[in-house]
């Protein structure tokens, strides 16, 4: 996926860029409206993440001109303002969704996924491994023509594993990615989801192996 992040706070932008790239997305960064206009005029993005308070103006004016140019690219607004005062304006101006700062990366990821799914992600999002066809947007998994819909945590776990094929993913890091920080979960919770995924992957030629004491690894058989 190709994202455009419009955010003037460099350290926040860096963190978001790192995280999105970690998930395998291509992300461009614009620190102001002028740069954002340039980027969006020359590149076709799947999604734009837009901050509202920018040094050279209000992100909403970018949103308005973006919509006036009839560009279909969905926009998620990043706002630090009180929801009680700002909500209506942003959705009225054509934002597809908004997320309030500070945000959880998994919430951002979930909102991006929901917006992209609403915009009808095409089959180019599908990923193939052996007999396996995985559509992360639709959250479906097809093995030998049989399609099942994954639960959210299964989907996210599979996505994480597939983004780092043949790499070892430690249990604590998987817990961090799958559960929110205020949930008290033991690392054994991961085993439940790995178990479910293994069942789904039966006969796909893709296998999750346990690396004793270290974590899990996904690889083609």
């Amino acid at each position: 996926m190709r994202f455009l992040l419009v955010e003037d706070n460099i350290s926040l932008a860096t963190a978001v860029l790192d995280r999105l790239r970690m998930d395998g997305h291509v992300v461009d960064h614009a620190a102001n409206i002028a740069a954002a206009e340039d980027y969006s005029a020359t590149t076709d993005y799947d999604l734009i993440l837009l901050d509202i308070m920018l040094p050279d103006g209000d992100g909403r004016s970018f949103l308005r001109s973006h919509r006036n140019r009839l560009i279909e690219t969905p926009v998620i607004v990043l706002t630090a303002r009180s929801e009680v005062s700002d909500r209506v304006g942003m959705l009225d101006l054509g934002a597809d969704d908004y997320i309030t700062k500070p945000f959880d990366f998994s919430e951002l990821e979930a909102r991006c996924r929901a917006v992209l799914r609403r915009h009808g992600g095409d089959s180019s999002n599908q990923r193939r491994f052996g007999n396996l066809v995985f559509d992360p947007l639709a959250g479906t998994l097809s093995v030998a023509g049989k399609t099942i819909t994954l639960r959210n945590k299964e989907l996210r776990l599979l996505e994480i594993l597939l983004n780092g094929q043949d790499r070892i993913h430690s249990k604590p890091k998987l817990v961090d990615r799958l559960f929110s920080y205020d949930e008290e979960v033991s690392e054994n919770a991961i085993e439940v989801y790995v178990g479910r995924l293994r069942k789904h992957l039966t006969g796909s030629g893709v296998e999750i192996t346990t690396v004793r004491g270290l974590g899990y690894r996904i690889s083609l058989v």
Partner: protein
Amino acid sequence: MSDPLPTSGSLRRRLTLQLVGSAAVLATLLFFVVLGFARDVAQQTHDSILLASATSIMDSVSVQADAVTVDLPYAALSMLGNVSDDRVFYSVSMRGQLLTGYDDLPISGQMLRSGQSAFDTLSYKGDGIRMVTLSRRLSLNGAPADILITVAQTREGQAAQLAQLSRSALQLGLGFFLVATILAFWTAQSSIRPLNQLTAAVSRRGPKDLRPVRRPVPSEMIPLVLSLNQFIARLRVSLTRSEDFIAEAAHRVRTPLATVRAQAEITLLRVEKPENRASLREMIRAIDESSRAAGQLLDHAMVTFRIDTLERKAIDLTELAKELVDRLQPIAELKDIDLRFTGSRCPTITGDAILVQNATRNILDNAIKYSPSDSAIQVSTRQTTSEIVIQVEDQAGGFGGMDTEVLTHRFTRGDNAVGTVGSGLGLTIAREVVEAHGGTLLIETNKSGTGACVSLCFPLA
């Protein structure tokens, strides 16, 4: 609503009373002036007839053969009879000697010179009389002889006439007073009308309508309207400022927190040592706690602010709840929570949509936050006889017998909230919003006892 203001009387009543009072004074004055004038005119008329009568008697006095003869003309007395049925007295005397007439009729004109006349009002035989005395000097046997003629008439007719006149004057005065009173009421009413119209125009306005008053008013009211407009302008500036302040404060607090949180989360993905990871997780939780608390405090400030100037527009609660469920779906999905909405089309309620949405959102946020993975949350709207209810039912274990009333107090959190990020303002905000709309917030344990069931009940419009 607000306490009744102390009043310093009614402008209209004061104006009416003053006008009616003036009318009463004027009517009394009118009565006396008319009466006095009529009395004078009647007196003068009577006097001139008396004088004419006396003159005609005087004309009949002649000196013949050294003797004075008086040939009393009939007309002299009959002209008085024409005026009224009052008795007439007369006397003709010369050098103090009565020639003819009533000898006891008082004579008052001893000092009169020839050709002069004098009027007098006095009592005679128990009746009030008006009399005139006329004097003329004749020459008798070469010596001057002063003839005095007195003509008098009782005043009963005149009194009757005066009574008639004063009745008319009284009627005139009363009529004047009556008409003036009606006019006073009308004047007071029409003087107050621009004030009433201005009042109606101002009170018709919605709570968010802070435009200056532009309608034409009488020039005396312009200072009042100008001050009112200045006041409105000041209010608008101050409202905008506090709204901006809250928004700005939210921005200032949340932006750095967002940066720290994002950095911490990225770092967490890179470090391996369990102690470092544990402290980073602690950090993220602390950030979440402070940002949520700050957010809810600011939301609470904004909610309180909006409640003060409660907007009243039609809200479709079913639509609102459905939108909210759609919006929170991605968050619920993260925990594989089955968040569902069921509800039929309900009549609209009136209120502030942003507030109602924020209240419902707080309840839903709580439900999602406290629900375990793979549970379900059911959101529904329904209409009862007098209310429209948004209900949020979860399987998060409920409030464990805690006093549900206490939960809606500021900064109180349920027993199950231990270990979960929150500030305890969510339920307070929800309750304040619902109550500002005349409704109630019900917190119950659901039927199976597995969770909470929170109902936001809004009265039907």
